[in-house]
């Protein structure tokens, strides 16, 4: 009927969007720069340390991603992490169980319950996510102080297999650190779920256009509930990872981690208004944040300068990404111009 010049080539099926590719380029640049300053950065021990220490933040970004995708936000995750990690640790201290697996399950279950509560308040109570999670951040954190009586659960009070878990490579028979493996599995599962299951696509649909979603029969409240519950589960899981990693449970643990998780997501292309972003991008975003945090102490810059430099790098990274996107778009338009 008509031959039209517009041929929209933006394909969803590619694993990386151009935005993610440009972030990848930026990440590689940063890594290269650091490696030049300190040649031990890319040593296997250093990488192992880095991935191990930040497996928590990296995994937390996934839960945050699902929340951001539906246009919400969850700043209670780090408090949930502390609460579930602390409660599970207290139980282990008191000898209720000593198995690592049970510890992980209990912590995840408690996190799930916390997330469920947050989800209920947001989906049934119709409270804005930012205010609900701000409130719950206070509540869960306060509860952590109260149940722990402001004490730590110290290393000697943990089961030794649990403490070893974070340092060993048993799950993969020596291939990689256990925590890193857990993070990797989470990413793979999430990647599949977000792309190839109805549930994942519903999350995108709700974030993209909630009104349309409800008209097409998606139960928005249920999706919201599920997503916040999932964020809680992740926080709970990470609570156990965190305590295993540091062999210590403290009431102020994980404070501020939610901001790193949000930054990872946004850096990785997740839109705060919902609907946009994917698992590969989040992985890249989280890796960028990790590399920045890990590398700054390594490159011999005074500690007092590190924060400023971290801020600058984040700003430059996001701005360069925008500029790269603009350039890509401009070139696409030039190419189209020739066809006119």
């Amino acid at each position: 009927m008509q031959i039209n010049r517009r041929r929209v080539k933006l394909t969803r099926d590619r694993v990386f969007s151009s935005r993610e590719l440009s972030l990848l380029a930026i990440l590689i640049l940063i890594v290269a720069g650091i490696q030049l300053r300190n040649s031990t950065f890319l040593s296997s021990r250093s990488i192992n340390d880095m991935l191990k220490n930040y497996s928590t933040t990296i995994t937390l970004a996934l839960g945050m991603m699902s929340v951001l995708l539906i246009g919400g936000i969850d700043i209670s995750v780090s408090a949930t992490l502390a609460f579930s990690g602390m409660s599970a640790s207290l139980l282990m201290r008191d000898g209720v169980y000593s198995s690592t697996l049970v510890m992980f399950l209990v912590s995840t279950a408690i996190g799930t319950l916390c997330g469920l509560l947050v989800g209920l308040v947001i989906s049934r109570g119709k409270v804005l996510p930012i205010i609900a999670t701000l409130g719950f951040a206070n509540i869960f954190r306060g509860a952590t102080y109260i149940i722990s009586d402001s004490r730590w659960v110290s290393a000697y009070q943990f089961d030794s297999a649990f403490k070893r878990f974070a340092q060993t490579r048993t799950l993969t028979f020596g291939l990689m650190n256990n925590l890193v493996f857990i993070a990797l599995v989470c990413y793979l599962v999430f990647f599949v779920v977000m792309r190839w299951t109805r549930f994942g696509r519903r999350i995108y649909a709700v974030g993209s256009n909630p009104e349309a979603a409800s008209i097409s029969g998606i139960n928005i409240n249920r999706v919201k509930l599920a997503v916040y519950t999932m964020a809680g589960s992740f926080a709970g899981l990470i609570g156990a990872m965190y305590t295993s990693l540091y062999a210590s449970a403290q009431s102020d643990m994980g404070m501020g981690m939610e901001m790193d998780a949000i930054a990872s997501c946004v850096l990785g292309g997740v839109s705060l208004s919902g609907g946009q972003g994917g698992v590969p991008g989040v992985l890249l975003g989280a890796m960028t944040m990790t590399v920045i945090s890990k590398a700054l102490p390594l490159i011999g810059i005074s500690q007092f300068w590190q924060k400023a430099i971290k801020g600058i790098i984040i700003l430059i990274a996001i701005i360069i990404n925008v500029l790269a996107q603009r350039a890509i778009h401009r070139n696409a338009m030039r190419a189209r111009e020739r066809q006119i």
Partner: protein
Amino acid sequence: MSEILLELKGITKTFPGVKALDKVHFQLRRGEIHAIMGENGAGKSTFIKVITGVHMPDEGEIILNGKKVVFRSPLAAQREGIAAIYQNVTSYPDLSVTENIFIGHEKVERGIIQWKKMHKAAEELLRPLNVDFQPAALMGTLSVAQQQIVEIAKALSMNAQIIIMDEPTAALTNSESEELYRITERLRDEGKSIIIISHRLEDMYCLASRVTVFRDANYIGTYQVSEITPPELIKAMVGREINDLFPKPKAKIGNEVFRVESLGRTGYFKDISLSIKQREIVGLTGLVGSGRTEVVQTIFGVEPYDTGTVYLDGKAVEIHSPQDAMKLGIGLLTEDRQNQGLILDWGIGRNVTLPALAKYARGKITKDPIENMAAKALCEQMGVKAQSVFDKASSLSGGNQQKVVVAKALTSELKLLIMDEPTKGVDVGAKAAIYEVISDLIMKGMSILIISSEMPEILGMCDRIYVMHDGRLMGELDREEATQERILELAMLKKTALAVEG
């Protein structure tokens, strides 16, 4: 099996302060195309939403296949084989076309979505609709019209018994509408029943066998299309007679007011030169996606231009933002009233006065009573159907929203008013009102540039017509020489043809 597939009896639906439907009846036969017509705000869309389970009726019953049913959610209606294309496009901009089509009934095997199969199925659904985008494209990158087509494909994909289309042609040009007619007829021949809502009489006459008319939330009657003449139908809808739909004024055309020379924006359009004289109504037409909207957005300063010059009253001017344009006396009425024209959460009054706050303020301080009186006057002039100027814009019917957008444009003192699809989704009565407003403005010395996909409107109102195709101006026609055929010929010219012409 009875001949009546769907019947609604005594349906009443009240919104806070508004009775949208008052004891309305409706019967849909198996395998028929049934039109619903009525003024803006008559309750057509609400009625549809009652059928599809978006709204629960306060009173009345729905009988499907002889059985009484209650739809508590849109999903319940979908399960009973009812699919709908809503008036306001309800798509997911961040998802692919394929997903938009299959959302809610994805092809899943062992819990895993089969993307390949879905893309293929989407392609098969889209092919007969003659589209030029790929199923994997993001919905957000499509134009409103293209999105409308996807919505149609979506309804088709559901394999529904009853397909409801709420103003599907509002964003389409004639030729595309014809394509839609063909599809619709094919569906009917396959035994589906179709309900279509439209303000275009030709839609109804081309397609429907019966028509039901609503007015002011009331059921007026159901007629055989073959037995009712257009004036009778209009009378049934509006409640009075409309004699002259296109009141083209005999205004004295003055000097050139506005001119652009070889305006271009890389990748969007190129070499656009057009001029408009005082008291002239100029049309800009073409197929959907030919770039008309982008041209006027650029003129209005929303988007930057890469080449070309804009002249106002013979002087070259720079327009970098809508404020610049408005200061120079250029106004734009956007085609996307939901996203660009209105603040849906706001009252009508505030919407109307937004572009000209300073005019109603004392110093920098706003004066609500003055604004409200002004808004009231403009809304009454446009015949907006509302209780008060405090009604939220979102509560208005589509056509009434459009009237509010027109009212907004009337607040400023303008030299040139650009109207992008000003009568999209507007009822006959209101169309007449908008045309009257246009005439009025012309008589006051203003110039008008109308973008429209409706041929009769372009032919009936314009002094001169520019035709675009593929981001290029293909030609210019005078009122006298313009005919539907001439316009279509220009609008569908191939690039090669142009190259030969030089």
